[in-house]
């Protein structure tokens, strides 16, 4: 076995990480867009509260977020049993890993989208309304396309964050190879055993490569938005 070839466990961790990151971003994107729109455009009582709530996972110790997820969606949590009755088990499953990653990436995605929405000139939306566009159509045909680069940048940053999520994930869904073991938790597991330097190096290499690529992509998208 050459030093570059992956063991089945490592390969699983890599593909699972990509799957978790992808699913978490896709699931949180519509919610993040909605929340970002509300935060950017509406003024209401509790605006600051909602803003703080959204940003909480960014500042809370990840282990706390993971524990709270366990309380909410664990097998004995508040929403765990009803969801299980519907056939969706989250604790200690890959779906749960995606949920944990989504919650952790959510604030970053919301921030990026909110900035993009705030950069859209409301005067253009007003002009569109005089041309017969209802507020829903204004959002779809004006606001959304104009903030698309920012939304994509948010998705990419969220993807990178989800890819590297560790604390909340390991607390909520543990570290089960093939089910919940992502790159980050695989590196952690490998570090517990002596003599795994080559495997650790490979995983760290992948980790850096993916994160760096994602950041570059989001930078390109953000610059595109500025040019508009």
């Amino acid at each position, binding site marked *: 076995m050459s030093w570059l070839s992956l063991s089945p466990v490592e390969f699983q961790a890599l593909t699972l990480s990509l799957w978790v990151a992808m699913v978490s971003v896709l699931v949180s994107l519509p919610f993040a867009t909605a929340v970002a729109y509300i935060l950017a455009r509406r003024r209401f009582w509790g605006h600051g509260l909602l803003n703080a709530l959204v940003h909480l996972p960014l500042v809370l110790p990840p282990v706390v977020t993971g524990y709270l997820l366990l309380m909410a969606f664990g097998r004995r949590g508040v929403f765990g049993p009803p969801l299980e009755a519907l056939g969706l088990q989250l604790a200690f499953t890959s779906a749960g890993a995606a949920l944990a990653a989504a919650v952790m990436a959510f604030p970053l995605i919301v921030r990026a989208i909110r900035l993009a929405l705030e950069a859209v000139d409301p*005067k*253009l939306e*007003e*002009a*569109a*309304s*005089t*041309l*017969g*566009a*209802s507020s829903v*159509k204004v959002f779809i*045909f*004006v606001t959304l*396309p*104009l903030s698309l680069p920012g939304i994509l940048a948010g998705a990419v940053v969220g993807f990178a964050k989800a890819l590297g999520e560790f604390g909340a994930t390991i607390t909520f869904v543990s570290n089960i190879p093939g089910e919940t073991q992502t790159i980050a938790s695989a590196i952690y597991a490998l570090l517990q055993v002596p003599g795994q330097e080559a495997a650790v190096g490979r995983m760290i290499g992948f980790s850096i490569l993916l994160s760096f690529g994602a950041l570059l992509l989001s930078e390109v998208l953000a610059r595109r938005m500025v040019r*508009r």
Partner: protein
Amino acid sequence: MTVKLDIQLKRGGFHFDAQLSAPAGVTVIFGPSGSGKTTLLRAFAGLDPIEQGHVSIEGADMSGVPPHHRAVGYVFQEPRLLPHLTVMANLKFAQKMGRVGAGQSFNEVTDLLALRHLLERYPAALSGGEAQRVALGRALLSAPKCLCLDEPLSALDHGLKQRIFPYLERLRDQTKIPILYVTHDAAEMARLADHIVLMHAGRSVLSGPATEVLADPAAVPFLGVRAAGTVVAGRVMSPDPVTGLAVMGFDGGQLILPELAQPEGRKIRIRIAAQDIVLASEMPKGLSALNILEGVISDLHQGQGPGVMVQFKVGRTLFLARVTQYSAAQMGLVLGQRVFAIVKASAFDPAGIGT
């Protein structure tokens, strides 16, 4: 088609109370900055809520109707084109939003405003004048029942303004819907207005046909002394046989114009500022001025300043002249008196001659 507005608003300490009724043609809403012209237009288009009053188009109440259902085409001071769409897609945006109805066709509008060669471009690649023409076309293609133009030329320099005027004049002559046109520029008003509504401190103080309002001495305080002056409508006649200069015939006489780029028989209108007319009580002799009109004083109005506004009639056409109180007393000006008006050549700014 007629639009009617009756709007009351309170904004901070500002009381807004305006009424207007606009038939087909251009109704210019004129007033200084802060007099509430834009407030009126925005309330009419449904962009800002009104507290009291109502808005109706063709007799249908529009007061509670959201802007996208009002069918009011709006051209703002800045073009506000959608930057992610081509000129073509901007022009067809209203159609895509489901706004269809009787109105000018795509080809008619792109011909009228000379937009053909711009269709594939993005707004970022347009000049200021081109962008504003596209905005005008976009509003026209939204099947509007009424068009609102909110100082559409204010962001353009003098040269560009002059190039857009002919388009606006064609628009006025070819569309059959009411056009509400907000401006604080007297020349723009004189050139385009069929009707005028004067705004002052949030109130509509005077309104009526353009020629009547502009000839009304009572309107002068609201227009400002420099903007006071009448619009004379007439036709281009054959050139003066002696001087070879262009001649405009109007109801009551003729005016010789130093420069005219319009063909014979064409209807034109010119603005003659009150300060560009000199009055004489007897037929003057030995003057360089070519235009001496004989008229009868029909109104005298003393303002707060040192001047007196004299309205006089030449045939059925009204003129306004501004003289000092001293001169008025010296000449013994009274109603019904015969006067001779000397119109300075500088009164005819070629750029101010409209069609």
